[in-house]
């Protein structure tokens, strides 16, 4: 039996008297790759913040690894790449290695210093994202795509069981997006890391993810990828709020 990694039970969130999320129930299990899709303002980032414990739900409960979020302490089991990661202060004087190593802050423990062991772990994480040769470069000198890989390495360095990413491809050029998603698939398949990915790119991601959740204030669909693919574009357009036409890899191959 698979372990449950995230479980949202009837979660609602109200901000300034506006219901941002209503009755969300979602379960992510070990080794699954979830794509969380929805239009702008649908509450995707809010749901991620709730799952990460950055904000508290107005009602309902969230469990991480079987433990209520309010008492959850094993933070090192979660890797997180935010939408704003690459909007950091590019003048910040830090090397790639220093940034990645900072992902081990909690795991190393209070009053302790990073040693060669942590440097080695950071180098291993950089190897996974193919950025090990950049370890001594200042983070601000890298391209947007390279920076995002470094932030993924920071999220991976603690060997998490769950990787949460909020629109990580913002600011990355189209050419790098494809290799980025391939890398995510490898992480999920070869390293067994559960992934929850928030994205706008419904065409690419739904081909990669094992599960899909469609959110627009409430969950309109959640299930395995094959069931999502069977859904009619009109149904998706209805909850999306505007016409949506999905292009699958197979369609493109047919067109060719």
């Amino acid at each position, binding site marked *: 039996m698979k372990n449950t990694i995230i479980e949202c039970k009837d979660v609602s969130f109200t901000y300034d008297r506006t219901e941002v999320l209503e009755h969300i129930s979602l379960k992510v299990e070990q080794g699954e790759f979830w794509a969380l899709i929805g239009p702008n303002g649908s509450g995707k980032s809010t749901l991620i913040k709730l799952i990460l414990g*950055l904000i508290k739900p107005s009602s309902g409960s969230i469990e991480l690894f079987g433990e209520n979020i309010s008492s959850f302490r094993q*933070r*090192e089991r979660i890797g997180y790449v935010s939408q704003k990661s690459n909007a950091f202060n590019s*003048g910040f004087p830090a090397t790639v290695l*220093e940034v990645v190593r900072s992902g081990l*802050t*909690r795991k190393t423990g209070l009053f302790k210093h*990073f040693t060669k062991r942590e440097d080695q772990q950071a180098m291993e994480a950089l190897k996974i994202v193919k950025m090990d040769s950049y370890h001594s470069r*200042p983070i601000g000198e890298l391209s947007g795509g390279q920076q995002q890989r470094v932030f993924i390495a920071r999220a991976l360095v603690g060997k998490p069981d769950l990787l949460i990413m909020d629109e990580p491809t913002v600011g990355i050029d189209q050419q790098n997006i494809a290799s980025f998603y391939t890398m995510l698939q490898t992480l999920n398949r070869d390293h067994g890391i559960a992934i929850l990915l928030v994205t706008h790119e419904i065409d690419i991601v739904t081909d990669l993810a094992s599960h899909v959740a469609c959110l627009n204030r409430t969950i309109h669909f959640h299930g395995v990828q094959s069931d999502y693919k069977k859904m009619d574009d009109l149904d998706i357009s209805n909850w999306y709020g505007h016409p949506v036409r999905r292009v699958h890899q197979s369609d493109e191959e047919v067109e060719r």
Partner: protein
Amino acid sequence: MIEAILTYDFLQNAFLSGMIIGIVAPLLGLFIVVRRLALIADALSHVALAGIAGSLYLSQQVLFFSALNPVYLGMAAAVGGSLLIERLRGAYRHFEELAIPIILSAGIGFAAIFISLAKGFGTDLVGYLFGSVSAVSRQDLGIVASIALCVIGFIYFFYKELFALSFDREYAKVSGVHGKVIQTIFMIIVALVIGASMRIVGILLVSSLMTLPVAAAIQLAKSFKGAMLYSIGIGELSVLIGLIAAYYLDIAPGGTIVITSVIILLLVLFFKKTLRKMVGTKGEADLI
């Protein structure tokens, strides 16, 4: 001059406390600058001014305060100001930087009231505003040394947490770094350093010693550790040259220390620009 330092206690005090501040002010300043909070030091120094002015005024009115070193009340005011800034930053989540001008204005306001009530403090206050080589007592040196130990200990033990919080506060929070506690201790320590530095550098100039060496260092450094070492080196150089100049010219050391760090910053910027041009020209020549 070395002979004078060996002979006069006040010069020993000034040099020793200056050199200590040259280490701790830029050390803390690095964490302030990279978080784009450089004005915090300015706000806290103005709050410290209110504490000093309050202490000097009370010393005219109450016997107890006439025996009390005004630096203590200055430090207490700065610590209070630092905690208030933290509270206000929480209240104005979308305009966090607003907390700084609010506290800065309050500091100046209180200082102006105390100065008016006392009908001026003459040379006493000038010494606090711009620093003084002769005003640093053994007691002041003791305060500076104790605070420096706290600062170095704090940064030594919480270096990785401070780095994580400075680089990406949200990520640090998600990964379980105790941001609130560390940030509060950090703010208190910044306030204490400002309070301790004002005797030698002066209230109005203390923030410069926290920011100018860092501004030069981040132009040179490629890593965070490198930026830290450069900041300390430039801070020490500024204090040393500034104090020697102040001694020979018989002027307030605050001004000479700060102008020295401004000159170092300009030199760094100039050399970096020249180097970049040279590299650019070389690159073009290689292409041809």
